[in-house]
């Protein structure tokens, strides 16, 4: 069958280097992947099309790009699985990265961020002469996160990186989790302290884009949530993020539902004058529009509160 592939092109060596879209009509098989189509174009229509690719089997991580606006591996995306948009398939380079040529992006910042999380096992003492004894589950739960192939697709579509390139990002945080959760690693606390810093684990917005686009089921955001939990449980409770999460539970235990004012106070700290001053105009505007949420004592708890409180207390005890 014939398909129209619309590719975002960029040639840095042209007289007027500007990105543009170009359409190619290409004959594909029922079972073809987007990569198959791109290779056909490169081999039989336009040799200048630049795209990285190697294994064709979603294991090397070379062919990360965007198909119809969403990050993916070209080799893993079957053409007949794509929905909508009147049959035309739009292929663009990954986002949140500079473009070198056509579909080839500059991965250097990606690797630099991986490097930032001290991505190697840190043990203490002499190297053991036999294997580390561990129940299978203590190790196999790391299989999904070790499955990360560093394709960059999560970084491409990360919504936090869209506004803040300094964020360490989902791939590096998933990598960090791989060591934090490794029972052999001896640097867990230091790792968590590093991740607790600005641009670290608390800058994730929980938008789940990385979970959705990851071609390998690594679920980076779930790892980030696990890092936050491990951080808080190890006593790292002095960030806005930690106070927000813990304050949330306290408020639910108190009221059953959200008390926005109390949560804000618990997060920012009662005496955080500068931040409250910043929020003052927001509060005034809400007040003027007749919808400032009732604060603390005026915010009534739900009926049947004791049941909610019992559940909060029970799960707390189970830890």
């Amino acid at each position, binding site marked *: 069958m014939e398909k129209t592939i619309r590719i975002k092109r960029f040639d840095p060596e042209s007289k007027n280097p500007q990105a543009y879209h170009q359409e190619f009509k290409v004959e594909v098989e029922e079972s073809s992947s987007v990569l198959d189509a791109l290779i056909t174009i490169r081999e039989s229509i336009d040799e200048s099309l630049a795209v990285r690719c190697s294994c064709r089997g979603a294991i090397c991580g070379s062919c990360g790009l965007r198909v119809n606006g969403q990050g993916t591996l070209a080799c893993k995306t079957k053409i007949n699985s794509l929905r909508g948009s009147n049959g035309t398939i739009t292929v663009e380079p990954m986002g949140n990265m500079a473009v070198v040529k056509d579909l080839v992006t500059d991965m250097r910042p990606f690797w630099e961020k991986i490097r930032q999380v001290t991505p190697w096992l840190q043990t203490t003492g002499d190297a053991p002469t036999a294997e580390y004894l561990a129940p299978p589950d203590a190790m196999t739960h790391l299989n999904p996160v070790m499955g990360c192939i560093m394709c960059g697709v999560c970084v491409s579509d990360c919504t936090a990186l869209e*506004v803040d390139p300094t964020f360490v990002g989902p791939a590096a945080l998933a990598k960090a989790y791989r060591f934090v959760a490794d029972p052999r690693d001896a640097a867990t606390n230091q790792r968590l302290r590093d991740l607790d810093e600005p641009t670290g684990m*608390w800058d994730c917005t929980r938008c*789940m*884009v990385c979970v*959705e686009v990851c071609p390998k089921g690594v679920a980076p955001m779930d790892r980030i949530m696990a890092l936050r*939990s491990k951080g808080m449980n190890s006593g790292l409770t002095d960030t806005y*993020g930690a106070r927000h999460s813990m304050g949330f539970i306290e408020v639910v235990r108190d009221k059953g539902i959200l008390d926005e004012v109390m949560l804000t106070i618990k997060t920012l700290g009662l005496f955080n004058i500068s931040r409250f001053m910043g929020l003052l105009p927001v509060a005034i505007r809400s007040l003027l*529009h007749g919808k400032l949420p009732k604060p603390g004592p005026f915010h009534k708890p739900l009926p049947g509160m004791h*049941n909610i409180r019992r559940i909060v207390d029970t799960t707390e005890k189970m830890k």
Partner: protein
Amino acid sequence: MKYAFYPGCVSKGACPELYQSVMAVYPKLGITLEELTEAACTGAGCLQEKDQLLGDTLNARTLAMAEHKGLPIMTICSTCQGVFAQANKRLNDDPDYLAEINKMLAPEGLKYKGTTVVKHFLWVLLEDLEEKAWKDKIVKPLKTLRAAPFYGCYLQRPSEALGFDEHPERQTSLEQVIAATGAEVVDFAGKDRCCGLPILTINEPNSMAMVHKHTTDAKTLGADVMVTPCPLCHLNLDGLQHTAASRHNTTIDMPILHFPQLLGLAMGLDSKSLGLKRNIMSPKAALEKVGVAL
């Protein structure tokens, strides 16, 4: 159709106009709502970062309450919808986990079997109602109004928990409803991105950059309003838009409507009953375009 109604904290708190607009709109659709008054907050994904078991238990409790009544749940918040969907999936995927949680529900006389269906109001319109039942109520098509959709992450991802494979129409539910109101859909890339609210207190500059980016993009594309099914997105895009604009030394003035407000307008309801005066970013100009006074 009758639903166990789960309004969510924000429609009862910082966005009362959402609750108000739903109350104005739903009776016209022939559905009945029975509010779950004892149901706890879903945790919004935030409580779960500290303690997923707690989140899942609280949500299993709410799901069990509806199951006990034999009713599906209707939500009006993308975040509540998403958190319920994820919890429901975990509970259904792992019977041992569900049994463990049911032990904690037992003192209250509750037990969750795993059967409760949870649907956002948007999905109720598209999936449960006869098309006539709601489209015929659109007596005042909002022709000339240009509306940009903004979903909220939890109504778009993860697609597996949200059932997009069985219900592909859910992926474009908001566009479909906007189109049905007669308004023109302004498609823009930011529609499924993060509004920034979850990091408002954690990283305000990033949060404000998101508000700035999305509202400016929508404005650049010629939208008169943005429409959202998520009151949390609304909080940030509407409530913090002035802050975002001043952080970026600009003015944006993009009205943000809750989707039931848009639907209500198309059904001929007045701005007062839809609580439109409570929106921080005034929709006055946009309303004038469709002949409605604020």
